[in-house]
């Protein structure tokens, strides 16, 4: 294989990794702060994709419809996430692990069927604006021009989150809460409200990621069950609650998938799970995570 093709596969992996990052970022945040593994995360991601389709469909006559539908999808999903948090997730903060997992899993089931009821079973296709229909060539390697936007969006989200955590007061609180909830609570900061906003933010990210995914191929039911497990792998490899970890984890998964397909196509997913299992055995809190407080 020549350099150009290797570079092409690398770009391909980078793009897929960015998509995974956008999905996993919210998941990691929610788990890191609230200690809840949100099985419903991918369902909300898919809902975001469907939302963006609806918004795009409604505003089709306007040229900015395509671009605006993406953040709108994030907000719509965030609204759903906010309601979910207030009505349901609030009740399970202190519950046992199995209860939390069952609840979020049930929410995933309910949301999947809700999507089916609302949008039906046929594929949804978003037509791209003219300027991103042709590929661009980077050092001779072709890249879907939309993917440039995807990678930029991913970078923007990563930088935005990093800046938020490092430089804003709320970000500091969130980072502290990942480390120790008790201390944050002892400082008089209301934990439940933090949780609500963190959850909503996490779901906004999921919905936004869904909006980004929507113009790639088509939107179909069942996309969520395929990606939730990969998102888990990303978060496990990178480390719960660590932004850097999620970024690194998603790039690892993206590139491993991309290159393994070339020489061992059946083994791509197997390899991902072997890596995930290995990390769990050797360093359960992931590459960049903090060891779990019990």
């Amino acid at each position: 294989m020549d350099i150009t093709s290797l570079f092409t596969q690398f770009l391909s992996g980078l793009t897929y990794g960015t998509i995974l990052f956008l999905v996993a970022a919210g998941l990691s945040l929610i788990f890191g702060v609230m200690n809840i593994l949100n099985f419903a995360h991918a369902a909300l991601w898919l809902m975001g994709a469907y939302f963006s389709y609806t918004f795009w469909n409604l505003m089709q006559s306007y040229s900015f419809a395509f671009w605006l539908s993406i953040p709108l999808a994030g907000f719509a999903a965030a609204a759903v996430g906010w309601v979910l948090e207030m009505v349901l997730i609030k009740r399970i903060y202190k519950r046992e692990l199995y209860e939390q997992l069952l609840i979020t899993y049930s929410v995933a089931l309910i949301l999947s069927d809700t999507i089916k009821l609302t949008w039906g079973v046929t594929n949804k296709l978003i037509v791209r604006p003219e300027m991103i229909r042709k590929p661009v060539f980077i050092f001779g390697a072709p890249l879907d021009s939309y993917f440039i936007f995807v990678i930029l969006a991913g970078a923007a989200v990563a930088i935005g989150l990093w800046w938020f955590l490092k430089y804003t007061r709320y970000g500091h609180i969130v980072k502290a809460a990942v480390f120790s909830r008790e201390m944050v609570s002892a400082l008089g900061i209301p934990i439940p409200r933090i949780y609500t906003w963190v959850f909503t933010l996490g779901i906004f990210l999921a919905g936004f990621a869904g909006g980004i995914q929507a113009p790639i191929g088509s939107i179909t039911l069942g996309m969520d069950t395929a990606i939730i497990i990969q998102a888990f792998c990303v978060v496990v490899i990178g480390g719960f609650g660590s932004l850097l970890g999620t970024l690194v984890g998603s790039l690892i998964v993206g590139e491993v998938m991309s290159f393994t397909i070339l020489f061992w196509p059946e083994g791509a997913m197997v390899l991902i799970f072997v890596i995930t299992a290995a990390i769990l055995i050797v360093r359960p809190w992931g590459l960049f995570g903090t060891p779990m407080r019990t």
Partner: protein
Amino acid sequence: MDFRKTTAFFVTVITCLFFFGMTGVKAAEPYNLGVALGLTGAGALYSADGVEGIKLAVEEINAKGGFLGQHKIELFIRDSQTKPDVGVREVKDLILRDKIRAVINDYSSAVAVAVKPIAQEYKVLHIAAISNSENITKINPSPYTFQVVPNTYMQGKASAVAVAKIANQKGWKEYITIASDYEWGRSTQDEVVKVLKALAPNLTLKKEFWPRLGEAQFTSYITGIMAMKPDFVFGILASNDNVAWMEQAKTYGFFDKIPYPGSLITVTELQLQAKTLPRNMIALTRAPFFAHMDIPMMADFVKNYRAKYNKYPSDWAVLCYDAVYTLKQGVEKAKSIDTEKVKDEMKGMTVNLTRGKLTFRAIDNQLSCSSYVGTITDDPRYPFPIYKDIVEVKGSESERPESEILEARKAAK
């Protein structure tokens, strides 16, 4: 141990069972027809059309009183999720709980192959209208299973013959296949490669790609293939996967750079991707309505379908509509809805369908129907491109010879 509680619980359950058990009995009069298609999952796109075709057929037949004018058809539609185990479960439920006499199944060849022995065990007619793997009829044949769609051998041969001709003309040397990694993809790819080897000996198969069924991200495959610069690519993907693949490949300029002849591009893709589909591509499909508008049954069907659904019927609507009418004619020939009589009469039967007057081969219950190869071209009559210069490869021209089938069956034992 908590026997007490458990027993109390089970007593409650029994009472409920009794109550619900009684509702399982159905009157003999209506004809219970089951439909188990992949309404979600990779087959959703094609299956949805299939259901529409079935519903239209059932409406028309029931308007005249049902089968034999007295047995109204009651439809039971279930989702097999394009998964064999779910399909088997749903069909079993349909048979045991809803007492269906026939089931139209599936989108996925894997599901149809799994359902075949179940239908046989419970003596229920099984009509394959979308899924078309040859293995549904070639080996382990069931007297209850009938296929009204051209099978993978027939389709593979039809398109491979066309592609071989082009390859020889243009002096192509290397090609790559990309096929969905499941029963249909494997069966078709197998056949295509064999025919190409026989008819275009200068060709080498450079590499095979096998994306899994339900794959949504084709980027790595697209870039991988383009890097290898083959003379042409043969694609074997369907439904959701096919749409995703083509849309994504298009954004890489794939079809401008690499010839993509002979792949499955059905009326569904023609309609859905009307704006973006590359023109002048040579493609293959199974039951395009525009190839038979001269047949009155097809013209009527298209008219009624458009009136009901406000769009043109895809191959799957045609095939499933034909499936219901095949059943109707079987019932009429047997003069009874009794499954045993119907299945005996359907063997080797000639039927009048939208695609013409066609006959089932007695050896494998495969309908001798045509495969269609043509060039994608715009047509002023329709809001989407259709096939021009259609080559209708008849069943008799593309079927596997009976001797080979007998050999395959002996080998499978």
